[in-house]
């Protein structure tokens, strides 16, 4: 099998990020130096400025922009906080240190910059993301890690102390945590030809035990519920840099369906960011129609589930591929839902031996068809 290689992406990106931050700082500095109140203009994140872009297949911010000016009494404090956050991010990136949102909140106090609460500090970080068009993970600000990856993919670290070291992601049977060190690594080589993203830890472990990665030449990604942004970014990189098709397996309910959708088309909250979604990824199950076809044990949909289905029915992200509307209608018709584990009624390996190959073939065919 051909070995795919992708190198230098991370290093290049880091330069871009630091350049962007420096540009922001210089802009503020020059304005002050010229004796004018500094101002920053960025796209507005208000809901009426968020649109779905069918070409990009994700939410984007519209034309409207807002200006934060230090001239304005209500803006001067958040402006200062933004300037601080930019400087702090610059330091993190430069020293290749990582931080979390919580950490940012406390670090501010070391600079005598107080945030009223966590929410205020989170908002400022989102402002910084919007102003620079970069996600906070690019500035080394990470949330708690909980997702994992497993498969024949060799990565090369860029974090301090590990530069140049490599790791094969099949070397640890529990999978490898998708943390800052992993997401900032370059991809060295892989024999895999596809990515399978799995919602639940139990199934992820089952897949490893049953050697799905070998049988199907796959990199397995555990999203652990709604995929964190860095995991979505990681999947995007697997898709872009290594050209691997991505298949997503979730529970057969509106929530599982939406986990797949966020990986594919992104979220409203990240409308100001790019490259967190993987438009070519496909949802492989569990579909509502699978519940019928495989006669899976089910639970009834409750009121919240039904309400969510109606919301999703109107959601622009669900208007593209006819699959989505078809499955939503089926859910509403059968009023049942099933978890991934429901396949265990046919034995522990049924899902790996029978269901998975069938679905992969099905979605693969469909994809080829629609692409041509």
């Amino acid at each position, binding site marked *: 099998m051909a070995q795919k290689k992708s190198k230098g992406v991370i290093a290049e990106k880091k330069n871009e990020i630091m350049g962007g931050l420096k540009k922001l*700082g210089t802009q503020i500095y*020059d304005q002050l130096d010229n004796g004018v109140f500094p101002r920053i203009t960025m796209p507005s994140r208000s809901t009426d400025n968020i649109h779905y872009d069918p070409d990009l297949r994700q939410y984007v911010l519209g034309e409207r922009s807002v200006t934060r000016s230090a001239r304005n009494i209500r803006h001067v404090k958040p402006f200062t906080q933004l300037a601080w956050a930019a400087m702090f991010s610059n330091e993190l990136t430069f020293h290749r240190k990582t931080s979390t949102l919580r950490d940012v909140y406390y670090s501010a106090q070391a600079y005598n910059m107080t945030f009223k609460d966590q929410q205020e500090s989170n908002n400022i970080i989102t402002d910084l993301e919007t102003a620079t068009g970069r996600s906070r993970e690019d500035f080394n600000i990470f949330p708690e890690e909980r997702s994992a990856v497993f498969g024949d993919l060799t990565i090369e670290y860029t974090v301090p102390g590990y530069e140049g070291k490599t790791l094969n992601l099949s070397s640890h049977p529990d999978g490898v945590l998708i943390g800052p060190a992993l997401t900032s690594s370059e991809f060295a080589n892989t024999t895999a030809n596809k990515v399978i993203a799995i919602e639940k830890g139990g199934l992820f472990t089952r897949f490893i035990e049953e050697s799905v990665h070998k049988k199907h030449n796959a990199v397995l990604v555990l999203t652990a519920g709604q995929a964190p942004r860095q995991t979505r970014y990681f999947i995007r990189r697997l898709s872009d840099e290594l050209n691997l098709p991505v298949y997503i397996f979730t529970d057969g309910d509106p929530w599982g369906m939406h986990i797949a959708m966020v990986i594919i088309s992104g979220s409203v909250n990240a409308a100001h960011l790019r490259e967190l979604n993987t438009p070519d990824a496909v949802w492989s199950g569990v579909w509502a129609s699978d519940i019928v076809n495989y006669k899976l044990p089910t639970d009834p949909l409750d009121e919240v589930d039904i309400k969510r289905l109606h919301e999703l029915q109107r959601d622009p992200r669900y208007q593209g591929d006819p699959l989505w509307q078809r499955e939503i209608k089926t859910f509403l018709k059968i009023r049942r839902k099933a978890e991934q584990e429901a396949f265990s009624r046919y034995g522990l390996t049924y899902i790996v031996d029978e269901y998975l190959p069938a679905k992969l073939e099905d979605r693969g065919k469909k994809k080829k068809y629609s692409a041509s």
Partner: protein
Amino acid sequence: MAQATFEEISASDFFYRNRDIAGFTNPSRAIFAAIRELVENSLDAAESQKIPPDIYVRLSFEGEASTDTQIYKLRVEDNGSGIQPRFIPSAFGQVLYGSKYKLKQMRGTFGLGGKMAVLYGQIMTHRPASVTSSTGSAKIYSFKLMIDIQRNRPIILDRKVLINKEQWRGTIVEFAIEGDYLRARSKILEYFKQTAMVNPYANLTFVDPKGRLYKFNRATTNMPDPPKETEPHPYGVDVELLQRLIQLTPHRNMQEFLKFHFHRVGDITAQKFLVFSDLSVASCSKHGKLSYQEINWTGGPHCSRCGQELAFSSSKNPKKLSHQEIVKLMQHLKKFKEFLPPDANCLSPLGQELLKAGIVKELNPEYLVVIQRKPSTYAGHPFIIEIGIAYGGEIPKKGNFVIYRFANRIPLLYDEASDVSYKVINAMNWRRYKVTSDMPIAIVVHICSTKVPYKTVGKEFIADRPEVRKEVANALREVSRQLQRFLSKREHVDREKRRLSVFAKYLPRIAEFSTVLAGKKKQPDIQKLIKSVQKYGTEEK
């Protein structure tokens, strides 16, 4: 068959049996009332001479009386007018004897105060009171007295005459009293504080039984003009008063009687009234007897039809009025609309400057406005409302306003919720004045009148008279408007200050962070920007 017996009781006896109505309700109230009555007598005695009062009060522990009460010795010294020796025994040993039966603004109203205290002390301890006084003459007189309760007569136990080398003037009263100081303490201290507030020209000193010294120093030696004595106003009289006046008048006709014994009644008004009340007949040579409406009074009474001058029948001798006629006279006095309103020179309000000085001295507020209303009347009694509203300083924030009520320079400490001021203050729409109850605000209401409209004998709160209510409400609105102006101006200044401080705080930080971020060495100069905000700030006003 049982026979009912009737016996006359003396005034002393009456108050002995009904001491509640004079404020001697219980041991803690009694000790408060005794101090209060004597202090007020002393203030009056000094003020009547326009001497800034110096009053020294000492309460010393003498022994236990019961489980809750103790015997104390109360000593009150003043630098007032002093009492002539022949009046001393009666002034302190005879209830309802006093100088307070003429009409002018005085602190007490019944002539009870000091005697009641002495009487109460005697009842509880069976000890004599000692009174020492001098009018500044060469001699000081010192008496030991008791009251013969049944006969309402002073009993002189001892009398001394001392040589007044230092020309001392004043009165010292000392007697034993049973009471509960611990419980009365807070009221007594509050009483001194408020008395100091409304008598800013007085020095008050109080030494309590534990030897603690409380000193309230005067803030000024200016004193308000003393009130002038005045006759009763016709609207304010009753049958009893008429009868007394008739008894003592030397005048033998009604016109003279009215003119000399009533306030603001002259010849014309008396004549008018007599025709109005049919006590005198006016007749015209052409038209005969004229009714009140047929007389043109402008420029001397003449007939409204022919303009001829009128003849009046000589009116009755007041001494010859029958009881029914006296009752009728009183009713006519109340009905007649043309009496001039009472003159306020019988009143002695504190005045804005003195009231201000008193409030500043005791509350040290951040802002204070005081106004005095024009004189007004209720039922023939003139009164003046003075009001002050104070903000901040030592005024506590306690969730509602602190109200200080005064009547004829006496603090009113009990029954606040029944007072007309309390009602007016609570009925006010404070939101209109941007005032909220959590602000540190004190409201001072002073009413002075020849007859303060107390609701009860205890003299603790002002009755809800429509005339009084209206004056208090108008005064309150006036000071509140000024307070509102102050508050909004202060808010504006505060907002400006806050605004400037925000820029002064954050702009340097922005400079600092952007310098690091841009990789520069020298920070940009932001002084110009900060200055521009300041300039902008002053323009905005």
